């Protein structure tokens, strides 16, 4: 059963296996998971992905992930054939399990966040149990991390860092260079930091509404700047950064919000991750809120079997100092590279 012109491949399986205890079920699940992941990402790369297709793939991803968790013994290793993306994919699996909303700039292993894998449902950090988790349980387990806003930001951070890790591991393709490219073109390290974040978040906007994509990441960029450079105040930050870009973005958003058929202001605001606590300014910062969920950098090491350790304790405020230092160290690396 082949498309014309394609080489015949040995079909992975002939029958759909519904018996979960069967070893074939797990391998099939992993195959479906990896295929779905690739499909979703490739779909998002299109200028205008089909909404129906994206929704179906996302739902399949969610279902596969949930079923994996509900299975008696779960081997979380994903084994995609191409070695070049294996480490990146492993990391994507790890971080996907950690954080509900993830973003990757690595084109081969990106699980673009936002609507799809509204991976509130994905909580691999919860201790494994035989009973399938309900959404309610997962929310309770997350505790203070019940807000999508926190996840979005931490997800964005973690994704960028993960992509960098994969680059450093030198087991990656050309795509991970994307976040670094802007650095190379810039003269000033401070500007480089900002632009780097911006570049890395390019994939973040991948969602259902293309027309809002650009504005969405631009606004989240601003928050990104402030959230992970935890020791700086907002004013300090903006002194170094050219805010003309930000002003232009605001104008664009204002124009959008003034009506018309295409994305209304309400739609736009609704689509944006709800990380604003102040109603007066849609993009106001809530530093404390964001700082809480900064993951420890050490959690992004090579995939290990100690996944249960990547659980809620990491997301306590006690890690802030360490995280701040780690981030500074990372920034140095980025600047130098």
């Amino acid at each position, binding site marked *: 059963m082949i498309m014309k012109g394609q080489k015949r491949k040995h079909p992975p399986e002939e029958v759909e296996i519904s018996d979960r205890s069967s070893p074939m079920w797990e391998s099939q699940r992993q195959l*479906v998971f990896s295929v779905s992941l690739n499909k979703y990402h490739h779909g998002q790369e299109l200028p205008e992905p089909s*909404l129906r297709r994206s929704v*179906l793939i996302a739902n399949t991803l969610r279902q596969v992930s949930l079923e994996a968790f509900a299975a008696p013994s779960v081997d979380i290793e994903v084994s995609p054939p191409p070695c070049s993306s294996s480490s990146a994919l492993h990391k994507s699996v790890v971080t996907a399990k950690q954080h509900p909303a993830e973003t990757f700039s690595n084109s081969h292993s990106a699980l673009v966040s936002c609507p799809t894998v509204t991976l509130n449902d994905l909580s691999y950090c919860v201790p494994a149990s035989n009973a399938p988790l309900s959404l309610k349980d997962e929310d309770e387990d997350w505790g203070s991390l019940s807000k*999508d806003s926190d996840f979005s930001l931490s997800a964005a951070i973690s994704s960028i860092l993960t992509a960098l890790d994969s680059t450093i591991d030198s087991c990656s393709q050309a795509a991970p260079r994307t976040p670094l490219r802007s650095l190379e073109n810039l003269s000033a390290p401070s500007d480089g930091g900002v632009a780097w974040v911006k570049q890395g978040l390019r994939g973040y906007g991948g969602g259902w509404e293309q027309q809002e994509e650009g504005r969405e990441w631009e606004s989240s960029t601003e928050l990104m700047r402030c959230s992970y450079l935890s020791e700086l105040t907002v004013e300090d930050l903006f002194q170094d950064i050219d805010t003309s870009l930000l002003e232009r973005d605001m104008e664009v958003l204002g124009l959008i919000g003034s009506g018309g058929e295409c994305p209304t202001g309400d739609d736009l605001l609704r689509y944006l991750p709800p990380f604003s606590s102040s109603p007066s300014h849609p993009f106001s910062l809530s530093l404390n809120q964001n700082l809480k969920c900064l993951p420890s950098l050490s959690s992004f090491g090579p995939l290990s079997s100690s996944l249960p350790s990547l659980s809620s304790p990491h997301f306590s405020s006690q890690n802030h100092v360490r995280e701040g230092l780690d981030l500074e160290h990372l920034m140095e690396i980025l600047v130098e590279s």
Partner: protein
Amino acid sequence: MEEESDTRKINNSFLREHNYATEADIISTVEFNSSGELLATGDKGGRVVVFQREQESKSQPQRRGEYNVYSTFQSHEPEFDYLKSLEIEEKINKIKWLPQQNAAYFLLSTNDKTVKLWKISERDKRPEGYNLKDDDGRIRDPSTITSLRVPVLQPMDLMVEATARRVFSNAHMYHINSISVNSDYQTYISTDDLRVNLWNLEITDRSFNIVDIKPANMEELTEVITSAEFHPQQCHTFAYSSSKGSIRLCDMREAALCDKHCKYFEEPEDPSTRSFFSEIISSISDVKFSHNGRYLMTRDYLTVKVWDLQMENKPLETYQVHDYLRGKLCSLYENDCIFDKFECVWNGSDSVIMTGSYNNFFRMFDRNTKRDVTLEASRENSKPRAILKPRKVCVSGKRRKDEISVDSLDFSKKILHTTWHPHENIIAVAATNNLYIFQDKVN
């Protein structure tokens, strides 16, 4: 329409009359008009080709009214959305005819974003004998005019003109997947992934949104609308299908916004057939009311289901289109075939239903006799005026002669679009860029 029992059996009784090879582009929709006299096709290049049935002549009774090209026009052009920096495809997604009210024909055609109302009219006379200009059109010198004459209509070669009478645009943020004309002949609905809009045929600058399933937070989106259709007799009733395998029947008299359905049709999932792809294959690709308005037919990836409007918890009948693909779903998911959207169609008397499959196969199911047949639309297997031979797909190891094994099916040849003449047993089948018209042989 009164129900007549169709006593003719569906086997070995179809002739192939013509193969209209458009060659240029992939056909994306086919539709007979309400009388069956005209057949419209839309293609990926934004063109509409209308075929007209020849009048049957007594001198040549065996030529039972062939379909010839009547009009060709460019309905939609590729556009560019400057706000989103996206190209808007000119592919015609759907064509729906309006009922004929005068000598001209009207149809609605739509691409992803814009619906257009086209008027197709004939001109077979032209005025001749103007005073101020020659028949060539040159202005006459007034000083040479010595007498006045009355222009006279003279016959000319038939000319068929298509003019765009209305353009309904800027109402859809997402891709339009279907349009449906109301039985009141004044309104119609256009449906995209998340919304259904109600239009008046005369008014182009505004439409009413009657269904909106867009969530406040797009991250929570898990279901989209796949198709919608008005009830054939009740002008206040319409149905829409979803990607999760459900159909909602709505009554526009209840509220302005029909988010709340009055009937909800969904079959509970069979746990024994559950797989990773259960949701994808349950996604409904087409929904059609029967002509008598009592039934609904839905097409999902592997089956066609007939629902009684009075029974919401399960379908009345389920027909397996190509169940041999159930074990291949993973491969079909990988090569994207699992996302193919097949259409389904009723015959005029609602006794037979038809839908397409792969390898240029299409299937017919007789609801009364419960018999079904698989036929193939291809040039190699059909000679002109030959009777179509039923095909069979071999599922077990032993393949008989003339059977085709599942692994030999060509998944690039898919029949997604079919239509059935409203009164007679004439069907039109679109196989990629070829149009096949089949007629029932009368003994």
